[in-house]
């Protein structure tokens, strides 16, 4: 099993979620994060003080899937999250060794 973690632009969440359900992935976990990268931030001015804000709001999506699904998931996310502009985000794939569904104690793929 793997966990596919994607950093995307916040307003893309719904589309990504739909893309994933479309390929039969029915669970995911979302975290609000701030991202720093190529995409340039903005300046905020409060009276005298000017702040260059380089951390931008992003969403982190984590999806645990069976290994064979990884490519489909990556493609689905890429397609849905893409705007073509700098800051669209990244996808990372982690190996996981175990998965458990707390409610039932089911293990691994059954747990997803």
């Amino acid at each position, binding site marked *: 099993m793997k966990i596919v973690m994607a950093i995307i632009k916040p*307003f893309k969440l*719904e589309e990504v979620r739909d893309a994933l359900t479309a390929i039969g992935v029915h669970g995911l976990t979302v975290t609000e994060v701030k991202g720093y990268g190529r995409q340039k931030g*903005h*300046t*905020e*001015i*409060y009276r005298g003080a000017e702040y260059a804000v380089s951390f931008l709001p992003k969403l982190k999506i984590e999806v645990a899937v069976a290994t064979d699904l990884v490519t489909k998931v990556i493609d689905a996310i890429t397609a849905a999250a893409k705007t073509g502009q700098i800051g669209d985000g990244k996808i990372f794939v982690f190996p996981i060794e175990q998965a458990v569904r707390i409610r039932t104690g089911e293990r691994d793929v059954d747990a997803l």
Partner: protein
Amino acid sequence: MTLTSSLKAGFAAGTLLALTGASALAQAAAAAPVPNKGDTAWMLVASALVLMMSIPGLALFYGGLVRTKNMLSVLTQVFAIVSIVAILWVLYGYSLAFTNGGGLNDYIGGFGKAFLKGVDPAAVAATFSNGVVIPELVYMVFQMTFACITPALIVGAFAERMKFSALVVFMVLWVTFIYLPIAHMVWYWAGPDAIADAAKALAAATDGAAKKVAQAKLDEVVADAGLIYKWGALDFAGGTVVHINAGIAGLVGCVVLGKRVGYGKELMSPHSLTMTMIGASLLWVGWFGFNAGSNLEANGTTALAFVNTMVASAAGAVAWLFVEWGAKGKPSLLGMVSGAVAGLVAVTPASGFAGPMGSIILGLVVGGACFFFCSTVKNALGYDDTLDVFGIHCVGGIIGAIATGILVSPSMGGVGLVDYIAKPGEAAPGDYVMATQVFNQIKAVLLTLVWSGVGSLILYKIVDATIGLRVTQEQEREGLDIAEHGERAYNY
């Protein structure tokens, strides 16, 4: 209303006031009336309350309903409008709304009081009672707060997408070409004492010639009023001038600007109903100044307007709460406070004319009607009026304006009409025919809808052609706070 007299020495006024009762006794009508300090105190408070309605009241009521990324833009828009209009009002607004406009007097006033010329601490303004006046500066600032909040109401319709620069220009134009004329048409008149004096002169006139002159004078005084006022339409505190006026301008605006990016697709839940509740509560509290203040003095009628405001709002809240509970399965805070505001809107034109029971019924009706409109009709029509400016202010305002023609009826517990001529110097009951009155009310509503609807459309188009009304899609996604103002509302 007009400047009926001017005593010198503001400082001395204090002393003079102490003699009111007495001097009034002594020289009866002869003496120029001086303000009663109770009236002055009340009107000062009323003015402060109406300012509180806009800031922070309205700003929070609206701001809480937008998404976090646009909160600050709404606050900025409302605050900026209030500040800018306050200045315009001193420069020319008050004068154009509340002085005689000569040839154009049916539609607009003149520049006689531009820069508040002659409006000094000793100048007084008429009220609705013979022999009762208030310092004109108070009347001026009370009316100023109305001019400040009305355009601010409009921003709710196209919130989350309008360019700030465009908004500023549009509002200046709108106040000048839409608000001032409507205010003049509905509220400008010569005042009870001017009429009484002319009427007395007529009564006193002996020979035919004198009679003719006096009659002419009286006709002139009576004719010295705005068009809608002369139609006999009633609008105690601004159902047409404020709510219908702003409501229709908002509808036109949100249609012209188009829907928000993601409208209907993305979640656009209010970012803080807490702020919306605070705003609604302050609107309610401030509205006492708006409605009861519109009586311009502190007497039993003021109390009536106060009570009507209280119960109509409560009834509107209760109505929306229970209707939504029944229709959607859950009683919601947003629904209830929306109903309260709808009740306040509807009772605005009726507040000094209806009776408490009539106001309760009005509130119940409008609460249900606006719920239906905002939850059903709006979706059917499919325009994106972000904060339901039309659905609440215009729809509620129309219901209230027309209902005023009915609820004023003594048979409905209303106070009836007033005749200032029958017994010069006293407010005698006028003769009321429901059909006629309702007809007058409808005429006033229609003229307001057309004037503001068409006028606003033109102004939007001009601004769009010159500056452009709407921000770019990227800016809209990022949120107006960062994109337009370089600030964020919250940094928790």
